[in-house]
């Protein structure tokens, strides 16, 4: 199914616009999009990283988890939105490079998991700022989520970089 969609998208007029590299201006879209993408990765990585290290009790102890979450959530969602837009541009420009790529697919699965964890953080702390501190079980759960989120984010960055090396087009 994804193969069919990839082929349809590859032949679409939108993709044709991006892949017209004879014009310098359309050629520029991809490098610019990738630069914005990596800068947003830096924003998300540091923000999510701080939240997770705070939950693990490793860093950022001068602020409560709820305070940190309040500060950082807008950065996380803002950067994720830009990541989604630039990522979509890169995918539409070269559908086969991304959609058929095991690095890309791994990245999307990990991304879904980390977004879910971030949503859990946001919802729970909004309801109750001390949600994760009430019982040893909650604290344990917080540590599990934080560890998973940290590992997944490293995985997302690694899978993202490796997309370039796992391109299955041309053989």
């Amino acid at each position, binding site marked *: 199914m994804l193969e069919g969609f990839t082929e349809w998208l590859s032949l679409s007029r939108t993709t044709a616009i991006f892949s017209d590299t004879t014009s310098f201006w359309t050629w520029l879209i991809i*490098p610019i999009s990738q630069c914005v993408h*990596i800068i947003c990765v*830096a*924003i998300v990585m*540091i923000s999510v*990283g701080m939240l997770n290290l705070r939950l693990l009790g490793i860093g950022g102890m*001068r602020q409560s988890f709820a305070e940190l979450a309040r*500060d950082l959530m807008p950065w996380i969602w803002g950067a994720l939105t830009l990541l989604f837009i630039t990522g979509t541009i890169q995918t539409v420009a070269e559908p086969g490079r991304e959609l058929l790529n095991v690095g890309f697919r791994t990245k999307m699965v990990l991304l879904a998991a980390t977004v879910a964890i971030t949503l859990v953080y946001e919802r729970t702390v909004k309801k109750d700022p001390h949600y994760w501190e009430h019982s040893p079980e909650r604290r344990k759960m917080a540590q599990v989520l934080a560890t998973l989120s940290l590992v997944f984010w490293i995985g997302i960055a690694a899978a993202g970089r*490796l997309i*370039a090396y796992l391109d299955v087009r041309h053989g």
Partner: protein
Amino acid sequence: MDTVIGILQWINDQPLADNIRGSYWMFPAIETIHVIAIVIVLGSITRLDMRLMGLVWRNRPVTEVSEEMLPWTWTSFVVATVFGLLLWSSKPIDYFQIAFFDVKMILILLAGVNMLLFQFVTFKTVAQWDRDPLPPPPARFAGALSMVFWLGVVICGRLIGFV
């Protein structure tokens, strides 16, 4: 010029460089670590830069933010540099001919000079403005410059791959 090429050729011919070049997975693996370290450098330093510019964490002392962020910046910078040197050693003559590579190195140098000036001049008086939501102009300026330089480093780094 010939001496430079000679040195680069010598680096190029080292067994480690040869291994990285010849291996299917080494360059991608090293590059992945390099990139992860760089996003942590950028993410952490820009948090401090934005505090200096009065854009984030306005209610937190500058020294507190700096103590929280800089260990991450430095550790990641060392990791990024070591792994970056490994990447570079695998094709130093190629990189020698890429303008974005030169610009990236110059920007890192400028970021370093800016940081030293800030550390040894502006930061000396931090006690007077540590809790100011909006630090004085020299501190704001240092933060803005640092952000421009580091964003430039990352952009040039990404563009090296397009040449």
